[in-house]
């Protein structure tokens, strides 16, 4: 079997979530193919999505494994993503995966789960959140801290409304530039400010973090000051990826492949790989 060969798939639907961000639904052409079907991944894993003639890029699966198609939340930024936004429904794409370790859901069992998302980082954390809701009795408190520049950039608005109303989790939004017509209750500022005032049980909380790299240093510092164990704090890392199978070398951080050993590393692992995090 050639792991570098994409499985043919179709983009069945897409809808805009915010400026330059859309949700894409994809389905493998062969229902029996072993590949990213939407039903067989762990939260935090990613796929390699190909657009014929343009290329391939990694994207996180943004839902827990339970539906028979794949959902990816994608920002328009370069060649592959730009072309993707131009494609009509029912066009051919390619999929490989799922790849990566994902977030350690077993390690979180019985613990409070703190999700810290910045911008598009909500995509992989949404899969963790849905997973915890699916197995609600196995986990303690569920807290989502979600930071963004403006509320107009908020992704998954229907979900947010539902999560905010739900008693199954606590949602704290951090918005840097509030506007008069904002829909959701939110703090003004970045995620760090929200984190500072959260009451956490230090020895019983596991944190999962995904967002822009600038967020990681300050978040690690705050979680340390709250005495969370560095082996209970998990960051999802973004690197350039080409193969997804640990061979092409592009995603290497020191001695680890982000595509195979990651993209999720504990704060302790990340620091031992040379990432400038305080743990």
């Amino acid at each position, binding site marked *: 079997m050639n792991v570098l060969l994409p499985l043919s798939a179709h983009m069945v639907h897409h809808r805009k979530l915010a400026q330059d961000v859309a949700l894409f639904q994809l389905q493998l052409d062969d229902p029996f193919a072993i590949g990213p079907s939407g039903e067989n991944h762990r939260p935090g894993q990613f796929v390699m999505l190909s657009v014929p003639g343009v290329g391939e890029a990694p994207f996180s699966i943004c839902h827990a494994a339970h539906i028979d198609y794949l959902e990816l939340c994608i920002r328009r930024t370069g060649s592959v993503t730009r072309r993707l936004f131009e494609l009509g429904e029912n066009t051919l794409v390619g999929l490989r995966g799922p790849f990566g370790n994902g977030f350690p859901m077993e390690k979180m069992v019985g613990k409070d789960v703190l999700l810290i998302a910045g911008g598009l980082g909500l995509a992989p954390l949404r899969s963790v959140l849905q997973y915890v809701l699916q197995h609600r009795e196995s986990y303690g408190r569920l807290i989502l801290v979600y930071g963004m520049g403006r509320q107009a950039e908020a992704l998954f608005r229907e979900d947010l409304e539902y999560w905010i109303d739900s008693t199954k989790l606590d949602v704290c939004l951090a918005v840097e530039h509030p506007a008069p017509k904002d829909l959701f209750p939110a703090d003004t500022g970045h995620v760090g400010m929200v984190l500072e005032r959260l009451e956490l049980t230090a020895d019983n909380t596991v944190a999962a973090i995904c967002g822009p790299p600038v967020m990681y240093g300050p978040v690690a510092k705050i979680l340390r000051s709250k005495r969370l164990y560095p082996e209970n704090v998990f960051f999802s890392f973004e690197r350039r990826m080409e193969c997804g199978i640990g061979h092409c070398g592009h995603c290497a951080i020191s*001695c680890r492949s982000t595509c195979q050993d990651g993209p999720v590393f504990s704060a302790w692992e990340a620091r031992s790989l040379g990432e400038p995090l305080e743990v």
Partner: protein
Amino acid sequence: METFTLYREHLGQFLDVCQEQFRVQIPVSAGDGRYRFSPLAGHGVEALALEYHRTLLPPKKYFLLPEETICTFDQKGYHPVEVAEEPFLLFGLHPCDLHGLRIIDQFFSTPYADSAYQSRRKNALIVGLGCLPDDKCFCATMNTQQIMGGYDLFFWDLGERFYIQVGSEAGHGLIHKAREMFHDVVDEDRQDYLETLYQRRHLLTPKVDVADLSQIMEANPDCAVWDELGAACFACGACTMVCPTCTCYDIFDRVELDGSGRRCRQWDSCLFRDFDRIAGEVHFRSDRSDRVKNRFFHKEVVHVKQHQRSACVGCGRCQEACPAGIDVVSVLSRVHASCA
């Protein structure tokens, strides 16, 4: 260990027999004291350069092609391509290259098998060739002068005859096809072989002290050497292309006018500035010194932790290829000196 001898004047005949079944590749001169592996069919046995020290490109070029098609695509989807390879025979690999091949064999089998690499590899017979070092070889420093298997046959040049070790059943199969040319080893052959080993051993002395090397590198990550190398290096990537254990590649699409096309891969280099670029023009090793250091750390620290050995086999190719004259031996000795 099964051993035979073969008279020098029979080597050509033997290779002809090999050619009936295999595309035979041999080291030939590329002018200017350089060598390359090339098909015997295009050159004839007179071109065989038994005295070569290193080829421009390592044997990896036969297994991880400089560029190849991964799959094709059209309106209907993505389609596999056959790696239709006739069996081939690589004649004349030195011990350092056998080590290099073993390192990348292992690399391309975990955590997934690279199917193209592995199917070419399964199709290849490897014939090793004993050697004496030149001024750029430093196998004795990296402990790769030792022959530790990884060949089907191994040839030692004893002058008017070769002393041949058989390393596999497939190797024996080759001998069997031309059995009448080969002679059983007698005491005199054994004596000459041991004498050759003895002479070789005395030419092979370590050029740098590499004891504690990875510990020293880790303890001293800001060693001034890296900045100096960063200033000298052109980021041309030649060192990685010629390295028998550098395996990085890039994936991209080639498109025809009708929208169909090929997904390809090509050798890539961690020395290139865009190697780790992600969206937003973000780089993780934007300084050349970081990239040079990363290459050395990968060979001497990371690989040691993962596989208990350096990933440099001491072949000397990168020194020969580098327009900035950077050579591993002097880099390692300067790094090591920081702990003197």
